[in-house]
C-alpha cells in the first residue's frame, strides 16, 4: 500500500509526468515503425542507427553545440549514407552494419575523450535519462508521432505490399526506392529523438521487442501494426511504474517489461485451445 502511494506521489512530480509521456510517445512510435522494421529485416539497422547517434552527440559536444539539436540531422544523414552503402556494395547486410556500428561507437568514444568532462556522462548517453526529458522534447516527439501516424496511415496498403513482395509493388507503380528512403528517414528520426531518454544501447529494443510480441498475438496485419504500437506504449507505462516503485533505472525497466510482454506473448497462443480454421 505504501508502495502504491509512493508511486502515486512520484507521478505527481512534473519530471515524472514528462518522463511518462515521453515513454508513451516513444513506445507508440517505436512500436508502429517497428512492426514494419522487423518484417523488412531492418532490426539490426535500427541498432546501428542507435550506436551512430552517439557519434552525432559526441561530434556536437566537440563543436560546442547542443547535442539534442545535432543528433537529428546527423541521424538522418547517417541513415541515408548507410542505406546508400547497403544498396551499392556487395557485402552482407549484417556484416556491413556491424562494421558501421562498432566503428561509429569507437570513433564516438575517442571523440568524447577530447571533450573532457561531459556533465551528463557516458553512462547517461549509453542508457539514457528519461527523467531529464524536457517539455520541448515532448513537443518534438508528439510532432513526430503525428507525422509517423499520418504517413503510415495514408500509405498503409503500399507499405503492406512492399513488405510482402517488392516486384509486385513495382508492377503496381509503387516508387519502392523512394518509399524505402522515406521509411528509413522516419526510423532514424524516431531513433534520434528517443536517444536522450533511452540511450544508444537500448533504443532498438523499443523498435524490435513490442513488434515481435505483437507478431505472436495478431491474426491480421492491421491488428499487428496497432497492437505493436499499443504494446510499446503499455510497456513504457508499466516499466515507468516499476521503475518508480522499486527505484530502478527507468530505460532498462521499460526494456525488461517489453521482454516480459514478449515472453507472455510467446506463451499465450500455446495456452489457447486449438481453434479450427
Amino acid at each position, binding site marked *: 500500500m505504501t508502495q502504491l502511494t509512493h508511486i502515486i506521489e512520484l507521478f505527481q512530480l512534473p519530471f515524472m509526468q514528462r518522463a511518462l509521456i515521453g515513454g508513451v510517445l516513444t513506445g507508440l512510435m517505436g512500436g508502429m515503425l517497428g512492426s514494419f522494421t522487423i518484417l523488412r529485416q531492418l532490426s539490426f539497422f535500427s541498432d546501428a542507427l542507435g550506436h551512430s547517434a552517439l557519434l552525432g552527440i559526441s561530434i556536437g559536444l566537440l563543436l560546442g553545440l547542443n547535442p539534442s539539436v545535432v543528433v537529428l540531422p546527423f541521424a538522418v544523414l547517417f541513415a541515408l549514407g548507410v542505406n546508400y552503402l547497403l544498396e551499392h556494395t556487395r557485402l552482407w547486410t549484417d556484416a556491413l552494419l556491424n562494421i558501421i556500428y562498432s566503428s561509429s561507437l569507437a570513433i564516438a568514444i575517442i571523440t568524447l575523450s577530447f571533450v573532457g568532462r561531459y556533465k551528463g556522462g557516458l553512462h547517461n548517453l549509453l542508457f539514457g535519462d528519461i527523467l531529464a526529458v524536457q517539455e520541448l522534447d515532448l513537443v518534438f516527439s508528439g510532432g513526430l508521432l503525428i507525422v509517423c501516424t499520418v504517413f503510415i496511415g495514408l500509405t498503409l496498403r503500399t507499405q503492406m*505490399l512492399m513488405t510482402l513482395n517488392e516486384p509486385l509493388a513495382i508492377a*503496381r507503380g*509503387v516508387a519502392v526506392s523512394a518509399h524505402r528512403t522515406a521509411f528509413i528517414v522516419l526510423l532514424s528520426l524516431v531513433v534520434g529523438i528517443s536517444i536522450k531518454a533511452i540511450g544508444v544501447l537500448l533504443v532498438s529494443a523499443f523498435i524490435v521487442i513490442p513488434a515481435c510480441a505483437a507478431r505472436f498475438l495478431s491474426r491480421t496485419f492491421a491488428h499487428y501494426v496497432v497492437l505493436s504500437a499499443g504494446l510499446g506504449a503499455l510497456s513504457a507505462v508499466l516499466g515507468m511504474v516499476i521503475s518508480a516503485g522499486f527505484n530502478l533505472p527507468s530505460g532498462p525497466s521499460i526494456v525488461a517489461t517489453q521482454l516480459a510482454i514478449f515472453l507472455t506473448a510467446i506463451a499465450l497462443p500455446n495456452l489457447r485451445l486449438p481453434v479450427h480454421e
Partner: protein
Amino acid sequence: MRCGLKEPVLAVERLTVYRGTYAAVQDVSFSLEAGTDTAIVGPNGAGKSTLVQAILGILPRQTGNIVILGQALGHKGALMPLIRQQIAYLPQNFLFDRRIPMTVEELVGLGWDRLGFQMPWVDRQARRAAIQSALMRVDATHLKRQLISGLSGGETKRVLLAYCLVYPRRLLILDEAPAGLDMRSESEFYDLLYQLKQEQGWAILQISHDLDMVRRHSDRVLCLNQTLLCQGTPEIALSPENLSTAYGSEFVRYRHRH
C-alpha cells in the same frame, strides 16, 4: 493479324532489354488488342520473363517504346496510377516471408487499392464486396480469414489470381500462372481466363510452357528466343517449322513422338 481501328491495349515497339552485358530481349515489337489471349512461348532463358518485367517497368529497358492503354511507359517505369490500376501481374515465383502476419482477405484487398496516399478505410464497403466476389470467382472464400503463411502452393496461386481479379482490369500479365495447380484447378483457371477475356474484354498476355494449352486457349502466339521469331495464330506459330526455329529441331522431334 487483326489490325482494327481500336487502340491496342499494349503496344511494344523495338524493345531491347539488357541483363548485365547481354541483350536478353532484342528488338521485339508486338501489340495486344482487347479481348484477346496472347501466349509467349520459347525455351528456358529465351527472355520471356525479362520481356514481361520490362513491360511492367520492373526491369529497365535499353531502347524501344512501350505504350499501355495509350500512355507511354516512362523510362524509369513511370505510368499514371489510373493506368497502373488497369494492369494486373501474376509473377512466376511469388516468394514471400511466411512470417508476415497477413490474411488472404488483406492480400486480395491490396489488389483493389490505388496505392497512392489514401485513408485506410476509404470505400470500405465497395472494397469488401470486391474482395468477396474475387474470392468467389477463384473458389477461395473459405480461405478469407486465413493467414497467407498457411496456404499451399495451389491455394497461393488462386489467392494471387483473386488479387488480380479484385479490380476490373484491362490487361492481365501472367508468368507461368497455372504452374502448381492440379488438373481440375488448371482447367477452371483457363475457363476463368476465357470468361474475363470474352465477357469483360480483358487483354491477356501469358508466358506458357504448356504448348497444348496454348493451342487450345490462345488467340495468338509470340515465339521468343531473345528476338521475336514468329507471331500469329497457334496453328501458324506452333507449326513444326516455327517450333524448331524457337526450340531447336530436337525438341520438335520429341514433341511429335509423344
